[in-house]
Protein backbone atom coordinates (compact mmCIF):
# COMPACT_ATOMS: atom_id res chain seq x y z
CA UNK A 1 0.00 0.00 0.00
CA UNK A 2 2.73 2.44 1.11
CA UNK A 3 4.76 1.70 -2.03
CA UNK A 4 1.91 2.99 -4.22
CA UNK A 5 1.90 6.42 -2.60
CA UNK A 6 4.14 9.26 -3.75
CA UNK A 7 6.74 10.93 -1.51
CA UNK A 8 4.50 13.85 -0.47
CA UNK A 9 1.75 11.50 0.70
CA UNK A 10 4.19 9.23 2.52
CA UNK A 11 5.81 12.21 4.26
CA UNK A 12 2.41 13.55 5.32
CA UNK A 13 1.60 10.13 6.81
CA UNK A 14 4.98 9.86 8.56
CA UNK A 15 4.39 13.21 10.22
CA UNK A 16 1.13 11.68 11.51
CA UNK A 17 3.25 8.86 12.97
CA UNK A 18 2.19 6.24 10.41
CA UNK A 19 4.95 3.64 10.70
CA UNK A 20 3.94 1.86 7.48
CA UNK A 21 4.59 5.10 5.58
CA UNK A 22 8.15 5.12 6.99
CA UNK A 23 8.60 1.52 5.86
CA UNK A 24 7.37 2.64 2.39
CA UNK A 25 9.98 5.40 2.34
CA UNK A 26 12.56 2.88 3.58
CA UNK A 27 11.77 0.48 0.74
CA UNK A 28 12.16 3.32 -1.73
CA UNK A 29 15.35 5.00 -0.48
CA UNK A 30 17.21 2.63 1.87
CA UNK A 31 19.31 1.23 -1.02
CA UNK A 32 20.41 4.66 -2.26
CA UNK A 33 21.22 5.85 1.29
CA UNK A 34 22.95 2.58 2.20
CA UNK A 35 25.07 2.96 -0.97
CA UNK A 36 26.23 6.37 0.26
CA UNK A 37 26.76 5.33 3.91
CA UNK A 38 28.65 2.13 3.03
CA UNK A 39 30.95 3.98 0.60
CA UNK A 40 31.64 6.55 3.31
CA UNK A 41 32.36 4.26 6.26
CA UNK A 42 33.54 1.10 4.43
CA UNK A 43 32.28 -1.24 7.10
CA UNK A 44 29.06 -3.19 6.57
CA UNK A 45 28.10 -3.64 10.24
CA UNK A 46 28.70 0.07 10.99
CA UNK A 47 26.90 1.08 7.79
CA UNK A 48 23.86 -0.98 8.78
CA UNK A 49 23.73 0.62 12.24
CA UNK A 50 24.07 4.09 10.65
CA UNK A 51 21.32 3.34 8.13
CA UNK A 52 19.03 2.37 11.01
CA UNK A 53 20.00 5.55 12.89
CA UNK A 54 19.29 7.61 9.77
CA UNK A 55 15.75 6.25 9.41
CA UNK A 56 15.05 6.73 13.11
CA UNK A 57 16.15 10.37 12.71
CA UNK A 58 13.89 10.71 9.63
CA UNK A 59 11.01 9.38 11.77
CA UNK A 60 11.76 11.75 14.63
CA UNK A 61 12.60 14.89 12.62
CA UNK A 62 10.08 14.62 9.78
CA UNK A 63 8.39 17.84 10.92
CA UNK A 64 11.59 19.78 10.18
CA UNK A 65 11.48 18.73 6.52
CA UNK A 66 10.38 21.68 4.36
CA UNK A 67 9.38 20.70 0.80
CA UNK A 68 9.90 24.28 -0.42
CA UNK A 69 13.62 23.91 0.29
CA UNK A 70 14.16 20.75 -1.69
CA UNK A 71 13.26 17.15 -2.39
CA UNK A 72 12.80 14.62 0.36
CA UNK A 73 15.71 12.51 -0.85
CA UNK A 74 18.10 15.50 -0.63
CA UNK A 75 17.01 16.06 2.99
CA UNK A 76 17.39 12.35 3.83
CA UNK A 77 20.81 12.24 2.09
CA UNK A 78 22.05 15.12 4.30
CA UNK A 79 20.87 13.26 7.44
CA UNK A 80 22.63 10.06 6.32
CA UNK A 81 25.81 11.92 5.43
CA UNK A 82 25.99 13.93 8.67
CA UNK A 83 25.14 10.88 10.81
CA UNK A 84 27.94 8.93 9.13
CA UNK A 85 30.46 11.80 9.34
CA UNK A 86 29.75 12.22 13.07
CA UNK A 87 30.25 8.50 13.64
CA UNK A 88 33.51 8.53 11.68
CA UNK A 89 34.76 11.56 13.63
CA UNK A 90 34.04 9.75 16.91
CA UNK A 91 35.86 6.70 15.60
CA UNK A 92 38.81 8.85 14.59
CA UNK A 93 38.93 10.46 18.05
CA UNK A 94 38.89 7.00 19.56
CA UNK A 95 41.78 5.88 17.38
CA UNK A 96 43.74 9.02 18.27
CA UNK A 97 43.10 8.59 21.98
CA UNK A 98 44.42 5.05 21.67
CA UNK A 99 47.66 6.52 20.29
CA UNK A 100 47.25 5.01 16.87
CA UNK A 101 47.91 8.26 15.04
CA UNK A 102 50.19 6.38 12.66
CA UNK A 103 47.03 4.74 11.29
CA UNK A 104 46.96 5.45 7.57
CA UNK A 105 43.53 5.06 6.07
CA UNK A 106 44.40 6.48 2.68
CA UNK A 107 45.74 3.21 1.31
CA UNK A 108 42.77 1.35 2.72
CA UNK A 109 40.39 3.87 1.18
CA UNK A 110 41.96 3.50 -2.24
CA UNK A 111 41.58 -0.27 -2.24
CA UNK A 112 38.05 0.00 -0.89
CA UNK A 113 37.12 2.47 -3.64
CA UNK A 114 37.65 -0.29 -6.17
CA UNK A 115 35.78 -2.72 -4.00
CA UNK A 116 32.60 -0.62 -3.93
CA UNK A 117 32.54 0.33 -7.58
CA UNK A 118 30.26 2.92 -9.12
CA UNK A 119 27.45 2.18 -11.54
CA UNK A 120 25.20 3.96 -14.02
CA UNK A 121 25.87 7.27 -15.71
CA UNK A 122 28.79 8.23 -13.48
CA UNK A 123 30.72 5.19 -14.70
CA UNK A 124 30.65 6.61 -18.21
CA UNK A 125 32.55 9.72 -17.11
CA UNK A 126 36.29 10.30 -17.27
CA UNK A 127 38.13 8.93 -14.19
CA UNK A 128 38.92 12.40 -12.78
CA UNK A 129 35.28 13.43 -13.16
CA UNK A 130 34.17 10.19 -11.52
CA UNK A 131 36.54 10.76 -8.63
CA UNK A 132 35.49 14.38 -8.12
CA UNK A 133 31.81 13.45 -7.86
CA UNK A 134 32.54 10.35 -5.85
CA UNK A 135 34.56 12.30 -3.26
CA UNK A 136 31.96 14.97 -2.62
CA UNK A 137 28.86 12.82 -2.95
CA UNK A 138 29.72 9.25 -1.96
CA UNK A 139 32.67 9.83 0.34
CA UNK A 140 31.46 12.83 2.34
CA UNK A 141 34.45 15.08 1.53
CA UNK A 142 33.96 18.84 1.44
CA UNK A 143 35.25 20.64 -1.65
CA UNK A 144 38.17 21.91 0.46
CA UNK A 145 39.10 18.37 1.54
CA UNK A 146 38.46 16.78 -1.84
CA UNK A 147 40.79 18.96 -3.93
CA UNK A 148 43.65 18.15 -1.55
CA UNK A 149 42.75 14.48 -1.81
CA UNK A 150 42.86 14.67 -5.61
CA UNK A 151 46.04 16.77 -5.54
CA UNK A 152 44.70 19.48 -7.88
CA UNK A 153 44.07 23.21 -7.27
CA UNK A 154 40.65 24.09 -5.78
CA UNK A 155 39.61 25.95 -8.94
CA UNK A 156 40.45 22.92 -11.08
CA UNK A 157 38.57 20.66 -8.74
CA UNK A 158 35.48 22.93 -8.86
CA UNK A 159 35.59 22.82 -12.65
CA UNK A 160 35.84 19.02 -12.54
CA UNK A 161 32.68 18.90 -10.46
CA UNK A 162 30.87 21.35 -12.72
CA UNK A 163 31.92 19.45 -15.86
CA UNK A 164 30.99 16.13 -14.32
CA UNK A 165 27.54 17.38 -13.36
CA UNK A 166 26.96 18.77 -16.86
CA UNK A 167 27.99 15.44 -18.36
CA UNK A 168 25.67 13.60 -16.02
CA UNK A 169 22.84 15.92 -17.03
CA UNK A 170 23.54 15.24 -20.73
CA UNK A 171 23.57 11.49 -20.08
CA UNK A 172 20.29 11.58 -18.22
CA UNK A 173 18.72 13.85 -20.83
CA UNK A 174 19.86 11.48 -23.59
CA UNK A 175 18.29 8.60 -21.71
CA UNK A 176 15.13 10.62 -21.35
CA UNK A 177 15.08 11.44 -25.06
CA UNK A 178 15.63 7.76 -25.95
CA UNK A 179 12.88 6.83 -23.51
CA UNK A 180 10.42 9.28 -25.08
CA UNK A 181 11.40 8.15 -28.58
CA UNK A 182 10.68 4.55 -27.63
CA UNK A 183 7.29 5.61 -26.21
CA UNK A 184 6.54 7.57 -29.41
CA UNK A 185 7.47 4.60 -31.58
CA UNK A 186 5.38 2.25 -29.50
CA UNK A 187 2.39 4.58 -29.71
Amino acid at each position, binding site marked *: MAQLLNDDELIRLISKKDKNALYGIYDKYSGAL*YGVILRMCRNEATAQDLLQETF*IKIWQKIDSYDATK*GKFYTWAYRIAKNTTLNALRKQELLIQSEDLSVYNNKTQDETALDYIGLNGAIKKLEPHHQEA*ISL*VYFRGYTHREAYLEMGVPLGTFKSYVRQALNL*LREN*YNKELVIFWLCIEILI
Partner: protein
Amino acid sequence: MMERKKILDEGLLEKYLLDELNDSDRTIVERAIISDEVLKKQFSELEADFEKMALENAIVPPTHVKNSIKEQLEPAIVKRLSNTPLLVAASIGALFFFSSIWMYTQWQNTKNEFESLQSQTTDLKERLNILEENYVLTNTRLKTIDGKNTVPLLLKGNELSPNSRAIAYVNHKKKMVVVNSEGLPKLPKDKTYQMWSDVDGEMIDMGVLKSSEELITLKYIDKAESLNITIEPTGGNDHPTVENLISYVIL
Protein backbone atom coordinates in the same frame (compact mmCIF):
# COMPACT_ATOMS: atom_id res chain seq x y z
CA MET B 1 20.30 38.64 -10.65
CA MET B 2 23.58 39.41 -8.98
CA GLU B 3 22.85 36.74 -6.39
CA ARG B 4 21.96 34.16 -9.03
CA LYS B 5 25.22 34.78 -10.85
CA LYS B 6 27.22 34.50 -7.65
CA ILE B 7 25.42 31.30 -6.60
CA LEU B 8 25.93 29.66 -9.98
CA ASP B 9 29.52 30.81 -10.45
CA GLU B 10 30.64 29.71 -7.02
CA GLY B 11 28.85 26.37 -7.25
CA LEU B 12 26.78 27.21 -4.15
CA LEU B 13 23.85 25.08 -5.35
CA GLU B 14 26.01 21.96 -5.29
CA LYS B 15 27.43 22.90 -1.92
CA TYR B 16 23.93 23.60 -0.59
CA LEU B 17 22.76 20.19 -1.78
CA LEU B 18 25.81 18.55 -0.19
CA ASP B 19 25.21 20.50 3.07
CA GLU B 20 28.60 22.18 2.93
CA LEU B 21 27.44 25.78 3.45
CA ASN B 22 27.66 27.86 6.60
CA ASP B 23 24.46 29.26 8.11
CA SER B 24 24.51 32.65 6.36
CA ASP B 25 25.25 31.24 2.87
CA ARG B 26 22.61 28.53 3.42
CA THR B 27 20.01 31.18 4.24
CA ILE B 28 20.97 33.22 1.13
CA VAL B 29 20.69 30.16 -1.15
CA GLU B 30 17.40 28.99 0.39
CA ARG B 31 15.82 32.43 -0.09
CA ALA B 32 17.16 32.65 -3.64
CA ILE B 33 15.76 29.23 -4.59
CA ILE B 34 12.31 30.17 -3.27
CA SER B 35 12.23 33.56 -5.04
CA ASP B 36 14.17 32.83 -8.23
CA GLU B 37 12.44 30.43 -10.64
CA VAL B 38 15.60 29.90 -12.72
CA LEU B 39 17.59 28.89 -9.64
CA LYS B 40 14.72 26.77 -8.43
CA LYS B 41 14.63 24.87 -11.74
CA GLN B 42 18.40 24.44 -11.71
CA PHE B 43 18.40 23.15 -8.17
CA SER B 44 15.53 20.75 -8.90
CA GLU B 45 17.46 19.33 -11.85
CA LEU B 46 20.60 19.02 -9.73
CA GLU B 47 18.63 17.20 -7.03
CA ALA B 48 17.09 14.91 -9.61
CA ASP B 49 20.50 14.11 -11.12
CA PHE B 50 22.06 13.34 -7.77
CA GLU B 51 19.05 11.24 -6.75
CA LYS B 52 19.18 9.32 -9.99
CA MET B 53 22.93 8.74 -9.55
CA ALA B 54 22.34 7.57 -5.97
CA LEU B 55 19.63 5.16 -7.09
CA GLU B 56 21.93 3.82 -9.81
CA ASN B 57 24.54 3.19 -7.14
CA ALA B 58 22.14 1.81 -4.55
CA ILE B 59 23.19 -1.20 -2.47
CA VAL B 60 20.38 -3.27 -1.00
CA PRO B 61 20.78 -3.40 2.78
CA PRO B 62 20.18 -6.70 4.61
CA THR B 63 16.59 -7.27 5.77
CA HIS B 64 17.52 -7.26 9.46
CA VAL B 65 18.07 -3.47 9.32
CA LYS B 66 14.40 -2.90 8.51
CA ASN B 67 13.41 -5.38 11.23
CA SER B 68 15.61 -3.55 13.75
CA ILE B 69 13.90 -0.27 12.82
CA LYS B 70 10.51 -1.94 13.30
CA GLU B 71 11.58 -3.31 16.68
CA GLN B 72 12.80 0.12 17.72
CA LEU B 73 9.60 1.85 16.63
CA GLU B 74 7.18 -0.80 17.86
CA PRO B 75 8.47 -1.97 21.23
CA ALA B 76 4.89 -1.93 22.52
CA ILE B 77 3.87 -4.58 19.98
CA VAL B 78 6.84 -6.73 20.86
CA LYS B 79 5.83 -6.47 24.50
CA ARG B 80 2.22 -7.25 23.68
CA LEU B 81 3.20 -10.36 21.73
CA SER B 82 5.06 -11.68 24.71
CA ASN B 83 2.86 -12.06 27.76
CA THR B 84 5.57 -13.83 29.72
CA PRO B 85 6.86 -10.80 31.66
CA LEU B 86 3.25 -9.88 32.52
CA LEU B 87 2.51 -13.41 33.71
CA VAL B 88 5.69 -13.48 35.74
CA ALA B 89 4.78 -10.13 37.30
CA ALA B 90 1.24 -11.37 38.05
CA SER B 91 2.59 -14.58 39.57
CA ILE B 92 5.01 -12.70 41.75
CA GLY B 93 2.19 -10.37 42.78
CA ALA B 94 -0.11 -13.28 43.68
CA LEU B 95 2.70 -15.04 45.51
CA PHE B 96 3.40 -11.89 47.45
CA PHE B 97 -0.30 -11.44 48.26
CA PHE B 98 -0.79 -14.99 49.55
CA SER B 99 2.48 -15.07 51.41
CA SER B 100 1.48 -11.75 53.04
CA ILE B 101 -1.81 -13.27 54.22
CA TRP B 102 0.02 -16.37 55.47
CA MET B 103 2.60 -14.26 57.24
CA TYR B 104 -0.13 -12.08 58.80
CA THR B 105 -1.91 -15.20 60.13
CA GLN B 106 1.36 -16.58 61.44
CA TRP B 107 2.09 -13.25 63.04
CA GLN B 108 -1.32 -13.15 64.72
CA ASN B 109 -0.90 -16.72 66.00
CA THR B 110 2.54 -15.93 67.30
CA LYS B 111 1.20 -12.78 68.92
CA ASN B 112 -1.56 -14.77 70.70
CA GLU B 113 0.90 -17.44 71.76
CA PHE B 114 3.24 -14.79 73.04
CA GLU B 115 0.47 -13.11 75.05
CA SER B 116 -0.59 -16.47 76.48
CA LEU B 117 3.02 -17.26 77.34
CA GLN B 118 3.38 -13.84 78.91
CA SER B 119 0.36 -14.41 81.20
CA GLN B 120 1.60 -17.92 82.03
CA THR B 121 5.00 -16.47 82.88
CA THR B 122 3.40 -13.88 85.19
CA ASP B 123 1.36 -16.62 86.82
CA LEU B 124 4.43 -18.82 87.22
CA LYS B 125 6.39 -15.91 88.65
CA GLU B 126 3.69 -15.33 91.27
CA ARG B 127 3.64 -19.03 92.12
CA LEU B 128 7.40 -19.07 92.28
CA ASN B 129 7.34 -16.12 94.70
CA ILE B 130 4.83 -17.92 96.94
CA LEU B 131 6.89 -21.11 96.75
CA GLU B 132 10.02 -19.16 97.52
CA GLU B 133 8.40 -17.55 100.55
CA ASN B 134 7.12 -20.95 101.69
CA TYR B 135 10.54 -22.44 101.13
CA VAL B 136 12.26 -19.73 103.15
CA LEU B 137 9.73 -20.17 105.95
CA THR B 138 9.95 -23.96 105.94
CA ASN B 139 13.71 -23.81 105.68
CA THR B 140 13.91 -21.46 108.64
CA ARG B 141 11.61 -23.69 110.63
CA LEU B 142 13.49 -26.78 109.56
CA LYS B 143 16.77 -25.21 110.62
CA THR B 144 15.12 -24.35 113.91
CA ILE B 145 13.89 -27.86 114.60
CA ASP B 146 16.59 -29.81 112.80
CA GLY B 147 19.76 -28.17 114.14
CA LYS B 148 22.17 -30.07 116.33
CA ASN B 149 21.34 -27.77 119.26
CA THR B 150 17.60 -28.45 119.00
CA VAL B 151 15.96 -30.85 121.44
CA PRO B 152 12.61 -32.38 120.37
CA LEU B 153 10.31 -33.06 123.28
CA LEU B 154 7.08 -35.05 123.09
CA LEU B 155 4.17 -33.82 125.18
CA LYS B 156 1.71 -36.69 125.68
CA GLY B 157 -1.78 -36.02 126.90
CA ASN B 158 -2.72 -37.10 130.44
CA GLU B 159 -6.01 -38.71 131.48
CA LEU B 160 -7.87 -35.45 130.75
CA SER B 161 -6.90 -35.72 127.07
CA PRO B 162 -5.26 -39.07 126.48
CA ASN B 163 -5.06 -38.68 122.66
CA SER B 164 -3.21 -35.38 122.72
CA ARG B 165 0.24 -35.23 121.19
CA ALA B 166 2.45 -32.17 120.72
CA ILE B 167 6.12 -31.88 119.93
CA ALA B 168 8.19 -28.98 121.21
CA TYR B 169 11.53 -28.19 119.62
CA VAL B 170 13.70 -26.29 122.05
CA ASN B 171 16.96 -24.62 121.10
CA HIS B 172 18.67 -23.29 124.19
CA LYS B 173 21.53 -21.74 122.25
CA LYS B 174 19.25 -19.63 120.03
CA LYS B 175 16.65 -19.36 122.81
CA MET B 176 13.85 -20.54 120.57
CA VAL B 177 10.83 -22.77 121.09
CA VAL B 178 8.76 -24.11 118.19
CA VAL B 179 5.77 -26.36 118.80
CA ASN B 180 3.95 -28.71 116.43
CA SER B 181 0.43 -28.74 117.74
CA GLU B 182 -1.18 -30.79 114.98
CA GLY B 183 -1.67 -33.73 117.34
CA LEU B 184 -3.89 -31.75 119.75
CA PRO B 185 -7.63 -32.47 119.50
CA LYS B 186 -9.93 -29.67 118.36
CA LEU B 187 -11.44 -27.50 121.12
CA PRO B 188 -14.75 -25.68 121.34
CA LYS B 189 -14.61 -22.10 120.05
CA ASP B 190 -14.38 -20.53 123.48
CA LYS B 191 -11.36 -22.69 124.51
CA THR B 192 -7.69 -22.69 123.50
CA TYR B 193 -4.48 -24.45 124.38
CA GLN B 194 -1.84 -22.37 126.16
CA MET B 195 1.77 -23.26 126.97
CA TRP B 196 3.65 -22.36 130.12
CA SER B 197 7.23 -22.61 131.43
CA ASP B 198 7.75 -23.63 134.99
CA VAL B 199 10.53 -21.50 136.58
CA ASP B 200 11.07 -22.18 140.26
CA GLY B 201 7.46 -23.22 140.66
CA GLU B 202 6.06 -20.22 138.83
CA MET B 203 4.19 -20.77 135.54
CA ILE B 204 5.19 -18.18 132.95
CA ASP B 205 3.09 -17.69 129.79
CA MET B 206 4.75 -18.83 126.56
CA GLY B 207 1.84 -18.21 124.22
CA VAL B 208 -1.37 -19.67 122.80
CA LEU B 209 -1.37 -22.83 120.64
CA LYS B 210 -3.67 -23.23 117.69
CA SER B 211 -4.41 -26.85 117.01
CA SER B 212 -4.66 -26.17 113.25
CA GLU B 213 -1.10 -24.99 112.78
CA GLU B 214 1.85 -27.19 112.07
CA LEU B 215 4.61 -25.19 113.71
CA ILE B 216 4.12 -22.31 116.15
CA THR B 217 6.97 -20.24 117.53
CA LEU B 218 6.53 -19.47 121.20
CA LYS B 219 8.38 -17.37 123.78
CA TYR B 220 11.55 -18.97 125.13
CA ILE B 221 11.77 -18.65 128.88
CA ASP B 222 15.15 -18.84 130.61
CA LYS B 223 15.71 -21.41 133.33
CA ALA B 224 12.48 -23.22 132.57
CA GLU B 225 12.30 -26.60 134.26
CA SER B 226 9.29 -27.94 132.38
CA LEU B 227 6.86 -27.12 129.57
CA ASN B 228 3.14 -27.36 130.30
CA ILE B 229 -0.04 -27.22 128.23
CA THR B 230 -3.38 -26.14 129.72
CA ILE B 231 -6.82 -25.51 128.28
CA GLU B 232 -7.80 -21.85 128.73
CA PRO B 233 -10.53 -19.49 127.56
CA THR B 234 -10.06 -18.21 123.99
CA GLY B 235 -7.42 -15.50 123.79
CA GLY B 236 -5.32 -17.03 126.59
CA ASN B 237 -5.10 -16.54 130.33
CA ASP B 238 -2.80 -14.57 132.61
CA HIS B 239 -2.50 -17.47 134.97
CA PRO B 240 -2.73 -21.11 134.13
CA THR B 241 -5.81 -23.09 135.11
CA VAL B 242 -3.85 -25.95 136.62
CA GLU B 243 -6.84 -28.31 136.79
CA ASN B 244 -6.96 -28.10 133.03
CA LEU B 245 -3.33 -29.18 132.57
CA ILE B 246 -3.35 -31.84 129.86
CA SER B 247 0.37 -32.43 129.31
CA TYR B 248 3.82 -31.55 130.50
CA VAL B 249 7.44 -32.46 129.87
CA ILE B 250 10.46 -31.93 131.97
CA LEU B 251 13.42 -30.18 130.39
